[in-house]
C-alpha cells in the first residue's frame, strides 16, 4: 500500500470518525455525546470528499452536522436527563452485547477481507460531477424523489402531531 495524500487524509478522517464514535459511546454527559457525534458526522463528510462526492459532503455537513445534531440537542433539552455520572455496572447484558457485536464485526471484516469480489484486482475509480448526480436524480430517479418528498412532508406533520401537547379535557 503506497502512502499518498489520499491515504493520509483517509487515515485522519477515519481515526476522527471512529474516535468520535467511541467517545459518544463512552462519555457520560449527554451533551458531550452529541458533540462527539457531530464530530463523527463531520469526519464522514470529509470521507465523502475523498470519495469524489463533494455534493454529498456538503449535504452531510448541512443535514447531519447541522440539522440532525441540533435536533438531537433540542431533544435533549426538552427532556430531563439523569446524567450517567457513576459508571454503569458491567452487566451480563453488556457482556453479551460486546460479544455479539464483536462477533458481528469479526464476521463482517472477515467477509470484507476474504471476499475476492472486493479485494482482488486493481480498483477502478470513476469520477463524477455534481451535474451527473443532478441528472440521475431528476431523470432516472424522478418518482422515488417525489415519493421521498411526500415522505418528508408526512414525517413533518407526523412529528408535529406527535410532539404536540395533548389538550386536557
Amino acid at each position, binding site marked *: 500500500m503506497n502512502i499518498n495524500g489520499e491515504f493520509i487524509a483517509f487515515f485522519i478522517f477515519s481515526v476522527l470518525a471512529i474516535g468520535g464514535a467511541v467517545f459518544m459511546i463512552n462519555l457520560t454527559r449527554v451533551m458531550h455525546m452529541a458533540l462527539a457525534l457531530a464530530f463523527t458526522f463531520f469526519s464522514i463528510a470529509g470521507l465523502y470528499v475523498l470519495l469524489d462526492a463533494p455534493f454529498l459532503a456538503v449535504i452531510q455537513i448541512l443535514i447531519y452536522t447541522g440539522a440532525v445534531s441540533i435536533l438531537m440537542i433540542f431533544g435533549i433539552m426538552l427532556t430531563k436527563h439523569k446524567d450517567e455520572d457513576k459508571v454503569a455496572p458491567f452487566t451480563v*447484558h453488556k457482556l*453479551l*452485547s460486546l*460479544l*455479539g*457485536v464483536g*462477533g*458481528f464485526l469479526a*464476521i463482517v471484516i472477515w467477509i470484507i477481507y476474504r471476499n475476492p469480489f472486493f479485494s482482488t484486482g486493481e480498483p477502478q475509480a470513476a469520477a463524477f460531477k455534481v451535474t451527473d448526480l443532478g441528472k440521475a436524480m431528476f431523470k432516472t430517479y424522478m418518482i422515488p424523489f417525489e415519493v421521498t418528498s411526500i415522505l418528508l412532508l408526512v414525517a413533518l406533520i407526523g412529528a408535529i402531531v406527535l410532539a404536540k401537547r395533548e389538550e386536557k379535557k
Partner: protein
Amino acid sequence: MNKDWFVLLVLLPPLLAFLLMVAGRRILSKRMTSLFGVLSTGISLVFSLVLLVSSLRSGVSLPDWEFTWLTLDKKPIQFGVTLQPLNVLMLVIVSLVSFLVHIYSSGYMKDDERFTVFYSYLALFTFSMLGLVISPNLLQIYIFWELVGVCSFLLVGFWYFKPEAKRAAQKAFIVTRIGDIGLFIAIAMIFAKIGSFELHDLKGAIEAGKLSSGMITLFAILIFIGAVGKSGQFPLHTWLPDAMEGPTPVSALIHAATMVAAGVYLVANTFWLFQASSVAMDVIAYVGGFTAIFAATIGIAQTDIKRILAYSTVSQLGYMMLALGSVGYVAGVFHLMTHAFFKALLFLAAGAVIVSLHHEQDIRKMGGLWKKNKGLGWLFLIGCLSIAGIPPFSGFFSKDEILLSVYANGRYGLFIVGVIAAFLTAFYMFRLFFKVFAGSHEPKTARVPWSMTGPMIVLAILSAVAGFIQFPTHFLETWLITGGMKSLHGPESIAWIPVLAVIVSLLGISLAYLMYGVNKWDSRRVAQAVPWLHQCLVRKYYVDEMYHSLIVLPLKGFGWLLQVWDRYVIDGLVQLCGWISMRVGKIGSTLQNGQAQTYALISVVSFVILIVSLLAGRLFG
C-alpha cells in the same frame, strides 16, 4: 273430452281452498270459509262420481297420464294419475266422506275461533288423500302418505293448548313415522333394484321373475310395516286411540273413514306383490287377525265414547287386513268401503252426542238420551247394527265376505278369532249404545243443528244399503277385478257362515242388553271377578307403558349418557387442546419482557450464531 282433466278437477278444488284459506285467514268469515270448504269438496265429489260412472260404463281403466317431476340418474321420475277401479272407488269414498264432514264441521266447530284454520287443514287433508288414492307410483304414494300424516297430526293437535292434544299429536306423528320408514326403505330398495318407482314396473318385474322370492317377501313386509303404522295395526296401534283428542269431525274423516284405511288401500293396491310371497300373506293375516281381537278386547273396558270407537276402528282395520291376508281382496276392499260409511256415521253421531251433552265424553256419565233425541238414537243404532253385522245392514255383507274368505283360505284358527272378534264387536258397540241411550237418566241436552244431522242421515242410508252392491250380484267384485287380477275372484259362498256370524252378533248384543240395557247382570261384578283382566284391559294391555319404559326411557337415558360424553369427553378434549395452547402461549409471553433492546441483542447474537454455524457447516460439512 279428455278425461285427464277430470282428475285435476277432483284434486284441485281442495288445494285451492286450502291456499285461499291460508292466505285469507284473517279476512274470511266463518260462513265464507265453510262455504268454500263445502263447495270445493262438493266439486270434487261431483267429478269423482263422474269418473265412477265412466269407469263403470267403460268397464276398463281410464287413460292414465303423467309428467316428469325429476330426473334421477337419467331416469325420469313421473308424477301421474292412475284410475283403476280401486282408485276410483277410493276417490269416491274419500270425496264423499270429506264432503259430508265439511258440512258437519260447519255446525260442530261453529264456536271455535280458529274455524278457518280448521277448514284449511281439512282441505289440505282432502287434497292429500285424493292425491294418495290416484297415485300410480310409490314415490307419489309416499309423498301423499306423509302429507295425510301431517294433516292428521295438525288436526289431532288442533286444540294445541291442551297438553293431551299436544301429546297425542306428537305420538300420532312419531308412531306413524316409524311405519313410514318401513315404506321409505321399501321404496328406496325397490328403486335400487328395479330402477323405477312405478307400480306397473314393479309388477312387471315380479311377473318376469326378476326378483328373488326373499326380496319380494322383504319388500312386501316393509310396505306392510308402513300400512301397519298408518292403519293402527298392532304393534303400532297406540297412536290411534290417543288421536281422539282431535275434534270429532276429524276423527270421523281421518281416523275412521279415510286415512287409517290408507294402509289397507296400500296393501290392496300392491296386492300382487303380497300374493307373490306366502310369508308376507301369513304376516298380514296374523297381524290383522291378532289386531282385530286384541283391539276388540280393549274396546270392552274403555269408558270414553270416542276411544271405544277408536279401538273398534283398529279392530275393524285388523279385519280388513285379515281379509287381505287370506286372499280376500274384494272382501277387504268391500269392508273398507262399508266401514268408511258406518264408522264415519258412528263418529259423527258420537260427535252429536257429545255436543248435545255439552262436551261430555265419558259414557259412565251418560244415559237416557233416547228419550231426548230419538232421531240421533236411530242413526246411532243403524251404525251399531251395521258394524255388528246384522242383516241387511252393510256391515253384515262385508264381514260375511271376510269370514268366508278366511275360511276358504284354510286359516281355521284365524276364522275362529274372527268370529270371536265379531262377537266382541257386537258386545262393546251395544254396550256403548245402551250406556248412552238407555237408562232412566234424564240428561240436559243441547240442540243438534241440521248441518250436523244431514250428513249423518246420508251416511246412515249408505250404511244401510251399501251392502247390496255386492249382494246378491257380486257387482263390486266384477268391477274391481276388471283391473286385471283374475286370480282374485272370491270363493263360493258357504251357507252356514253368515248364519253363524249373525248368531254370534246377536249373542253379543243380547249380552250387552242384559248387562247394560236392563242391568240384569251387574257389569261391575264381572269386573271384580277377574280384576287383573279388567285392569289389564282398562290399561290397554300396558302397551303404552311398555313402550315408554322399553323405548322412550332408554332412549332418553342413552341421550343423557351421550350428552355427558359429548360435553365432558369430546368437548373436554377440545378444551384441553385449547388450554394447552393457552399455557404454551403464557409461557412464551413471559419471554416478552418488553425490552426492545433485549430483543435487538437476541437478534444480533442469533444472527452471529447463524452465520457462524453456516460457515462452520460449509467448512466442516
